[in-house]
């Protein structure tokens, strides 16, 4: 906190008026409205969705391009650096809360609703006498049978991959501190690669689930929590990998200095967050 530690930029950098945010809003408007129309069988909606994504990508390039330019130009003093740190921390906290909603749903179904439906209770006796609780559930009260996921195999390998990637990203960080370009490049490249392998394996796992295990989003309490949690996690891995790739490109361009590399640190924080979420997933979705 600046008041307490006396850090004050003179002046604090306030960016010029910018067209990127409004582009972002338009993009999100197209994406949301497009999806809303699309899922209600108005096919033009899907085109709007595609357009929205294009605009969004353009906007991200433009916006982050500006940020990188400003950063390289030396506009960001130590106080701005602090702002970025606070901002990124609370952003990650908000992501934690987003995942909490789904973890909450998982715990609720496991501890409250599935037992009530399938065990000694009025609900069970009067309405679902044929359903018996189990976890991993093999079916829902009215869901076709399916095979639940095993923790061994791909999930265990994936856990190993992500844990290793946590180490490689830290190695890259040491490279930043020591200003060792080679170490940075290799560390980052290895991290991105591990992330990509993780995603490929996840796709394979999903394919297997859908085609051979009859495990789908519609497979009741187990299927929905499994796919929603791992799916949102996978999306975050994707975003994290993209962030790290951008950092890799910037490293190759020679953007960072040992004192000034918050862009990389932010991506690394995010990566660690994704890592920790996976551990929670591995324990609560696959193992227990």
């Amino acid at each position: 906190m600046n008041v307490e530690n006396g850090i004050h930029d003179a002046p604090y950098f306030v960016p010029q008026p910018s067209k990127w945010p409004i582009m972002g809003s338009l993009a999100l408007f197209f994406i949301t409205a497009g999806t809303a129309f699309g899922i209600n069988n108005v096919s033009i909606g899907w085109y709007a969705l595609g357009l929205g994504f294009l605009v969004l990508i353009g906007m991200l390039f433009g916006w982050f391009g500006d940020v990188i330019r400003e950063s390289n130009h030396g506009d960001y003093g130590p106080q701005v650096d602090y702002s970025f740190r606070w901002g990124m921390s609370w952003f990650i906290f908000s992501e934690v809360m987003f995942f909490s909603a789904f973890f909450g749903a998982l715990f609720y179904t496991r501890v409250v609703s599935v037992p009530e439906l399938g065990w000694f209770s009025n609900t069970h006796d009067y309405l679902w006498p044929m359903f018996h609780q189990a976890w991993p559930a093999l079916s829902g009260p009215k869901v076709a049978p399916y095979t639940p996921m095993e923790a061994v195999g791909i999930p265990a390998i994936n856990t190993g991959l992500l844990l290793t990637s946590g180490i490689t990203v830290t190695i890259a960080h040491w490279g930043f501190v020591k200003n060792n370009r080679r170490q940075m490049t290799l560390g980052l490249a290895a991290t991105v690669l591990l992330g990509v392998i993780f995603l490929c394996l996840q796709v394979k796992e999903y394919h297997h689930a859908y085609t051979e295990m009859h495990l789908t989003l519609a497979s009741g309490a187990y299927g929905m929590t499994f796919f929603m949690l791992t799916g949102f996690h996978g999306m975050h891995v994707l975003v994290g990998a993209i962030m790290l790739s951008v950092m890799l490109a910037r490293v190759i361009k020679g953007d960072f200095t040992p004192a000034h590399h918050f862009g990389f640190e932010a991506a690394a924080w995010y990566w660690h967050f994704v890592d920790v979420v996976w551990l929670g997933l591995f324990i609560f979705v696959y193992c227990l």
Partner: protein
Amino acid sequence: MQLRRLCAMAAACTPSFALAESPYTFQTPQSPIASHINDLHTWIMLIIVVVFVVVFGLMFYSIFKHRRSVGHQARHFHENTAVEVAWTIIPALILAVMAFPAARLVLAQKNTTNADITIKATGYQWLWGYDYMDYGFGYKSRLATPRAQIENYKDGAPPKSPLYLLEVDEPLVVPVGKRVRILTTANDVIHSWYVPALGVKQDAIPGFIRDTWFTAEHIGTYRGQCTELCGRDHGYMPIVVKVVSDADFKTWVTAQQAKAKAAQDDPNKKWTKDELLARGKQVFESNCAACHKVDGKGGGPFPALAGSKIATGPKEGHIHIVLTGKNAMPSWAGLSDVEVASVITYERNSFGNHTGDFVLPAEVKAARK
């Protein structure tokens, strides 16, 4: 009971809180729980009024005395640990005094054991179904107010009956003085079973059973309404409880049982298409028309059955959707084989659909497997 006496006294001095059917407070309680709630509320209101008078008294004293227009000069104090501690502790104590009787009442409300009769109340869009679990019969209870009284979009609507929106064709009948346990559940969306005078409200949640209880103290008819938003006709699914003497209840039960028996389908009966159609019309109008409309044209999210691919396609698909439901379409597996068979036959041959085929109860029975 001390509290009761205190409240009775309070009620006597503050008439607006407890006059019979005063429009300013709860309906006159007709069950022990309802009177306890009433007493608790009166007691809380007393405390609140006292707190209120103190708080507002101080504030308005200050507003009148410490204004600049009467020449008051500001004094610049801004802390006083003693009063700050006091006004943290005292409200906490007041709250404890409120919490104690409330906690006891929660325990009483939640104790649904030792019921004399158990009735299952099922919320449908937009009517209630009652099943007397101990006597093996059940029926549906619908709003009796005619639509013409409700829809006043144009002039010339008939005058509203005195029990407008609070009348049903078949009320719930319970014996006086008996502990009645109500199991609630729902067929489609969440409803809530609420009878103010009896002090009960319990949400009816599809796929789950919840329960509550009451003991009606006097013979009479008590009325309530669904209190959980359940779609278009949420305002039109009243609950009417008719409390009768024990003897009257017994006669009524016997009559109902006989009626149910007469209406029961003979499992060996050979159904003709016309019989199925007639029966199906009945089933359709009491179960399906709420969404698909009497003319099968549907509306909003509810698809038309007239000309529908499923209702004119292969029988299997039709039976399947009715038995298992789909998205907002509830499962109707709770209907009997005859009912499902007849309603499907009806749908396939009405609203301009002419498949010409018909579905026998045996086919439904087979499809359930």
